[in-house]
């Protein structure tokens, strides 16, 4: 995983924590989640907010040795935020190529959007820029995406096709869930295709850049006015 995929943009408000999830996400897949629970009691900030999504390989969904990747929202989420989670990784060296990422997907109870995505933006920054309300987000398209639209629980063949610009070295691809719900993907496949294969003209939906920007600016202002927070666990216990 190339961390610059995450850090190419000046991520304005990112707090990282390392915590175990219920499911195991095998390497080199990487989980990224941004979920704000709808209501919260007192929070032990050293532990961070409660997990909003479970991301990984779902053992319960294994059928005849066929594993599936899954993303599930765990709690009711605050609709005021662009809640989303992805399981993703990158591919390199495909500048100028047309790529297809395909899988069988199924979903349940998706509030906003779920499906496969592939981002040919430089260094894969589009998802961060748009979802975090970073400057320039109004000019940034979300990643190309193919939604899981079949009725609840039905496996469906889905593919997303992008044309990688000649100057772009790295693309990011994976499974995404925007908002609440559950989504699974299996039989994942990645290939270079010919120019006759139509490009995906749909996007990963559900992000309101202007709203995200306003939230970011407001919250940065609020945080700048807060009382100093001491170092957490400076004794390294």
């Amino acid at each position, binding site marked *: *995983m190339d961390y610059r995929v995450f850090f190419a943009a000046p991520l304005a408000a990112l707090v990282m924590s390392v915590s175990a999830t219920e499911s195991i996400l095998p390497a080199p897949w990487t989980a990224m989640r941004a979920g704000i629970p709808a209501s919260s009691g007192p929070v032990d900030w050293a532990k961070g907010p409660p997990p909003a999504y479970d991301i990984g390989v779902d053992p319960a969904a294994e059928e005849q040795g066929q594993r599936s990747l899954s993303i599930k929202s765990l709690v009711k989420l605050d609709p005021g935020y662009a809640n989303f989670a992805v399981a993703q990784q990158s591919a390199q060296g495909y500048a100028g190529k047309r790529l297809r990422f395909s899988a069988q997907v199924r979903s349940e109870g998706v509030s906003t959007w779920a499906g496969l995505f592939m981002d040919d933006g430089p260094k894969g920054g589009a998802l961060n820029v748009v979802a975090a309300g970073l400057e320039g987000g109004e000019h940034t398209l979300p990643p190309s995406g193919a939604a899981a639209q079949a009725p609840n629980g039905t496996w469906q063949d889905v593919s997303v096709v992008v044309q990688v610009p000649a100057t772009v070295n790295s693309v990011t691809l994976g499974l995404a869930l925007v908002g609440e719900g559950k989504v699974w993907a299996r039989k994942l496949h990645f290939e270079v295709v010919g120019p006759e294969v139509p490009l995906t003209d749909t996007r990963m939906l559900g992000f309101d850049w202007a709203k995200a920007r306003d939230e970011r600016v407001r919250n940065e202002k609020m945080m700048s006015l807060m009382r100093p927070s001491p170092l957490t666990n400076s004794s390294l216990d």
Partner: protein
Amino acid sequence: MDFRALLAAPLAALVMTSSAAELRMPQGWTAALDPSGNAYQAGVDPGMDEPGRHSLLIQSVGSRSVLDIGAVMQMVFGYAGKRVRLSAQVKAAGADTWAGLVLSDKMAFLNQFSASDADTLAHVFGVAAGADWKTVSVVVDVPSDGWMITTGLALVGNGKVWARDLKLDIVGTDMPLTTSHMGVDVPRALAQLHEQEAAQAAHEKPPQNLELR
């Protein structure tokens, strides 16, 4: 406290999985290791433990580029307009590039990306560790609209670095500011980054483990 006050944007609860789990990472601290996750190990060093006193360790694994960075970070808020001092006892062994205590007046990720980004690096102040335990301090002014600062321990290149007795406090304007930075040769780091990108671009590397094993 309503934690949403801390979560300034939707990405706030982003979680990255760290692979290097051989050392215990103390709660509240985050490892920002190299892209592979294998070039550094970080956590509490059991070999340095004393009763009631732990030491944070970052060590390189194998032979690393002198431009790679391994760090342990903690971001804290609420210091807008203040002069802030991070102090700790630090010590290094076999550090071939730079190792020491760092403090940034903004949110900064102490990873390889910052090595190639002069703008980011200009905000990462640091004091290098020596061969023996010594108390060092990094002092910075946080801008009046600064909503987050970054504290940490960093190792650039190969070697080991330890920190203990970490302390963060607000100091008066009579306290001299730190002018030294985390020791990264930005032009060289940038050149290496471009070399790496060119090498990557020349070889197709498809996504791995689509079988989810």
